[in-house]
């Protein structure tokens, strides 16, 4: 069991507990229907997110990674999302260098009251990922095949 073949892509979300996770809850409470592709990992703050989590997910076969935190200046921990903003932007800039389409990664800000905005973010990002070809699994990598041929 994994994502449904042909129907879903593997999308991982990292959401801060105080704003965006709450916003996703608000969207649920409001029954704002969304695509089923996204799996959400809860972290205390967007500043907790190490860009390596994102790279690791994408290298491990995730088709897309979405990060969402509190709006800048509205961080539960005062300034965590300012650090997050710099790190995430840097991460996005660096993705092509490791051979990953930067469109596979987005970061955004959604507050706990913005259920409708969350619905929009998920819908748009999922559509964006469906536009891209499925990510290669490590076992399917042509480089791996090359390595194998080289013995």
């Amino acid at each position, binding site marked *: 069991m994994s994502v449904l073949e042909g129907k879903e892509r593997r999308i991982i979300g990292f959401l801060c507990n105080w704003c965006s996770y709450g916003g*996703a809850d608000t969207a649920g*409470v409001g029954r704002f229907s969304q695509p089923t592709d996204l799996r959400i990992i809860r972290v*205390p*703050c967007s500043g907790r997110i190490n860009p390596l989590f994102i790279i690791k997910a994408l290298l491990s076969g*995730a088709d897309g990674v979405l990060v969402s935190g509190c709006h800048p200046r*509205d961080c539960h921990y005062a300034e965590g999302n300012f650090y997050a903003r710099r790190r995430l932007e840097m991460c996005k800039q660096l993705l092509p260098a490791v051979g990953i389409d930067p469109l596979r990664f987005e970061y955004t800000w959604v507050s*706990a009251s913005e259920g409708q905005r969350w619905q929009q973010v998920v819908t748009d990002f999922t559509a964006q990922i469906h536009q891209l070809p499925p990510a290669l699994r490590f076992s399917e990598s042509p480089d791996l095949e090359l390595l194998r041929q080289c013995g």
Partner: protein
Amino acid sequence: MRIGVFVCHCGSNIAATVDSAAVAAAARDFDEVVFSTDTMYTCSEPGQTGIIEAIKTHALDGVVVAACSPRMHEPTFRRAVERAGVNRYMVEMANIREHVSWIGKDKEANTNKATELVRMAVEKLRLNRPLFPKTFKATRRVLVIGGGVAGIQTALDCAEAGLEVVMVERESTIGGKMAKLDKTFPTVDCSSCILGPKMVDVAQHPNITLYASAEVEAVSGFVGNFEVTIRKKVTCVDWEKCTGCGLCTEKCPSKKAYNRFDEGVGPTTAINIPFPQAIPKKAVIDKEFCRYFTTGKCGVCAKICPTGAINYEQQEELAQEKVGAIVAATGYDLFDWRAYGEYGAGRYPDVISSLQYERMLSASGPTGGHIKRPSDGKEPKTVVFIQCVGSRDASIGRPYCSGFCCMYTAKQAILTKDHIPDSQSYVFYMDIRAPGKAYDEFTRRAMEEYGAQYVRGRVALIYPKGDKLVVRGTDTLMSSQVEVEADLVVLAAGAEAARNASGLAEKLHISYDTYGFFVEGHPKLRPVETNTAGVFLAGACQGPKDIPSSVAQGSAAAAKVLGLLSKDVLESDPQIAQVTLQRCIGCGKCIRVCPFQAIRETDFRGQRKAEVIEAVCQGCGLCNATCPQGAIQLSHFTDNQVLAEVEALCRC
């Protein structure tokens, strides 16, 4: 580890679109899962008992509950496993309601997604370690921000129960919006007669320290131990000496200062006391209008003051207070009704706001309780009230209902008839919203007993004709156009978040919604709490509220504060950062990024190392993501745990 998985049906909330039994069956194959079941309502008494029994029967030492959001019931399940002797942090939740069953109807995809979320939770739980809270002493004092009726109620309730209260009010007097009202609905009793004694109680209560003309500058610390910096604004009057005699206000030659208390209806003096019942009753100089400051020559008040309280050179002062809890009761402000250009407010003097009208009705107001047209001072015979000015109108960004305008408009229509018996009132409304005790009866009285003409429809245009104002609108019940020649037009301006509410929210680290109102912990079950421990809400700062609701919330917030501070010691959340000394290279990066100064440098056998101050750490994990060595790890959200979740989702 021996893990048990409990998949909830939540009645049909989850089970309608997720096959809970199939999720539970799939979970049996996950690593270290030894027991798995699905239950109707896991949070209910039998549901919790089921968890406790399973822990005992199967010797579980970790539990995954797949149910609603952890923001909803994580504390519930933590308590449940603790009752069975398992550490409360050995619980993980998979959110299969808000994040799965409620947002999609595809049962196959939902069941599959729910199963993945359970697997993710299992993988995280496998790396959970028991955590134990530390205890710390709490300061048994509370800060109340805002001295309106909600804040007053909170302050008095807390003070009566024995807590020390610090109240901060940015105006020079407490009383808030209620102090400006003439009468209150639905009893039509005098506002200042019911509020005044409470204000006096605040001033006289030995447990209450009042800072008026002051604002909260900064807040640091955490629940139980907040450090608050209060900025005392320049009033140019030494309040220690001022007796509130009012001599200065009589002699002040600058008599055309803007009267904020009267909403600009009638002027005041540059040195003034807002109203006779002001608490504290102290004079304040408005520098914008004071001749000493505008021309450099005057000083009449300084000469006349019998106690020598005037001090033109006064500087801002900062005061420090330590408190254990904070209640925000900052209320609301009126929507700027000039946004409706078609109503001509600001251009036509006889188009005024409801609060200006209220000041006119008040016997202690600028017109002595006589209704007068601002343009020529004549008594109006035809008064038109327009409701929903800045309410329920998405086109100006105010889609919400302000709640109390229907009621105060009905009250003002009644009072208009009382003041001017031969007058006729017209009320343009969208719907009448009067859901409260004796509220609907009250609006009916305005129509039937006092003859107010209610017209259901919006006003399209107001234009002057002679000394009258023509109000043109539609009557949607009659499907016809209506034109009323009015002497005075009163706009029932809606409520919006208090000026700079968002700035305060940022200082308190609480959330606010799109409109600037503060967000409560849960819309139904935690209406006065916030998601920041130790910070509570009272009154209209959380959303538009009338007086009874504000008072009820004021008392509710006080009850929450009293509950929190009834204990001498509080438990700290152990989900905090921990340093592995062997890995720490003493670079100090974590110290620099910590927003709470919770990490300090220590010397360990001659080497620089980081050390976490446990009572101060709030568990954001900023240091964790910064540490180049991975030496500082946030308990319960370690790198390995997050990566285990990623791994679980990417596997197979």
